[in-house]
């Protein structure tokens, strides 16, 4: 009988706290959003289930959680905490990405830069709220709307905030179709939303092969901190475009990225133990993340309007919203909002240009913040 009582004391039911229950409920909401609403299911489902796993109260003396030395989950989480998974995801993204629309209309690259203002304005906001400069940099990167970059930078600058930042970044990426449209509509007139853009020109294979090498050199020489992310992104793209490494590109964009996404999503979810996650810091990070995302969207749209003051061939300002690097969700939102005004207006291919430029921009921004704020 005493053995049974002793065992009962070690069960999850006996040690469950209200915080754990809240986090398990959040995990279920994520799974629900992934399955019912199709919001970033490849990420929200592993993260959601990870939340549930990570909030089963551990038994003293048994290393099972991500923060317990020697546990299986801690080894998986190593890829997150040491910033190993994000560059591997960038390799896969590079092998998936077609830079043709960007190469055919280089002006749109600047929209990818404008949307990064959200990162730096949020950094100022986080400093105002009392976060340290390193923490503020890690929080600001949520505005890049790039989950792997956010994880990479927070692992380097503020590992103690990694769980909250990762969850905030992926949550807002999943909520792109909810957050962006009101801001886009608020900042544009009906006339502007109906602007039709010139069809992109054909891009030669040689351009596609030279671009990743040249763009890497430009970005890496300016911001060496971005070498890992940018290097893997452009390496993946070169595998795709070279035409001689199709097998490697195929593995990078399918098997490799899938495996890493599973491990990353699940272990990030497991890291959200109530005791470390349910804090006022996390609430502030979520508020700042939403602000950051909204500011980034607004900056992209407003910069497109600013560029139109000088351009003969006008840009549809909605395309500026795709400067946040949530690929391809924000480009899809641009297409959707554009077609609400003019069903014959196809903005998707144009929006992909600032979208992929945003990926480069947020990685460069992360490299700058890392090199300036580390230590």
């Amino acid at each position, binding site marked *: 009988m005493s053995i049974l009582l002793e065992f009962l004391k070690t069960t999850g039911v006996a040690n469950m706290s209200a915080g754990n229950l809240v986090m398990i409920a959040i995990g279920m909401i994520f799974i629900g959003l992934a399955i019912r609403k199709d919001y970033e299911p490849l990420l929200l489902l592993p993260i959601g289930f990870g939340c549930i796993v990570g909030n089963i109260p551990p038994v003293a003396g048994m290393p099972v959680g991500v923060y317990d030395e020697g546990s299986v989950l801690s080894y998986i989480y190593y890829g997150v905490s040491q910033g190993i998974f994000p560059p591997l995801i960038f390799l896969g993204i590079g092998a998936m990405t077609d830079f043709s629309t960007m190469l055919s209309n280089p002006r749109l690259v600047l929209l990818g830069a404008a949307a990064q203002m959200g990162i730096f304005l949020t950094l100022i906001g986080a400093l105002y709220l009392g976060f340290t400069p390193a923490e503020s940099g890690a929080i600001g990167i949520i505005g890049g709307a790039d989950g792997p970059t956010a994880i990479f930078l927070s692992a380097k600058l503020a590992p103690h905030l990694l769980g909250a930042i990762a969850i905030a970044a992926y949550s807002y990426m999943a909520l792109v179709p909810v957050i962006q449209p009101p801001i886009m509509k608020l900042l544009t007139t009906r006339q502007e939303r109906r602007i039709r853009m010139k069809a992109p020109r054909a891009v030669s294979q040689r351009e596609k092969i030279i671009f990743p090498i040249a763009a890497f050199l430009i970005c890496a020489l300016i911001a060496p901190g971005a070498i890992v992310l940018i290097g893997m992104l452009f390496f993946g793209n070169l595998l795709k475009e070279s035409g001689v490494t199709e097998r490697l590109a195929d593995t990078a964009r399918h098997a490799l990225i899938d495996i890493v996404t599973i491990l990353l999503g699940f272990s990030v979810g497991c890291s959200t133990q109530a005791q470390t996650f349910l804090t006022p810091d996390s609430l502030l990070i979520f508020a700042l993340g939403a602000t950051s995302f909204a500011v980034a969207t607004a900056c992209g749209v407003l910069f497109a309007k600013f560029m139109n003051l000088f351009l003969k061939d006008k840009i549809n300002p909605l395309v500026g919203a795709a400067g946040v690097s949530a690929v391809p969700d924000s480009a899809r939102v641009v297409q959707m909002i554009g077609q609400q005004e003019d069903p014959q207006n196809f903005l998707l291919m144009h929006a992909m240009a600032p979208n992929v430029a945003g990926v480069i921009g947020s990685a*460069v921004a992360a490299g700058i913040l890392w090199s300036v704020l580390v230590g």
Partner: protein
Amino acid sequence: MLELSFSYQNILDGQGFALALTGMTIVFIALLMVSAFIALLPRILVFVNRYIPEVHHHAAPKARSRHGDDDEEAIAAAIAYALHSRTTGRT
């Protein structure tokens, strides 16, 4: 845990404005240079193609289909169609 201390002084102490301005400028410069390079690339290629013409080399063999049984499925479908045609009297 964070001690909440909302203050404008925090921004000044952390050199927030300088950091944001510098960071934003560098991001813009990097992407402006990428943009300029892309704009110049077709002209550079006209020159390069004159001396190093583009070659069409053989690509590496594509990765096998994950299922690897596409041909068998097509053959099975053809046999099934032939049998069906025969049993229903069609030619």
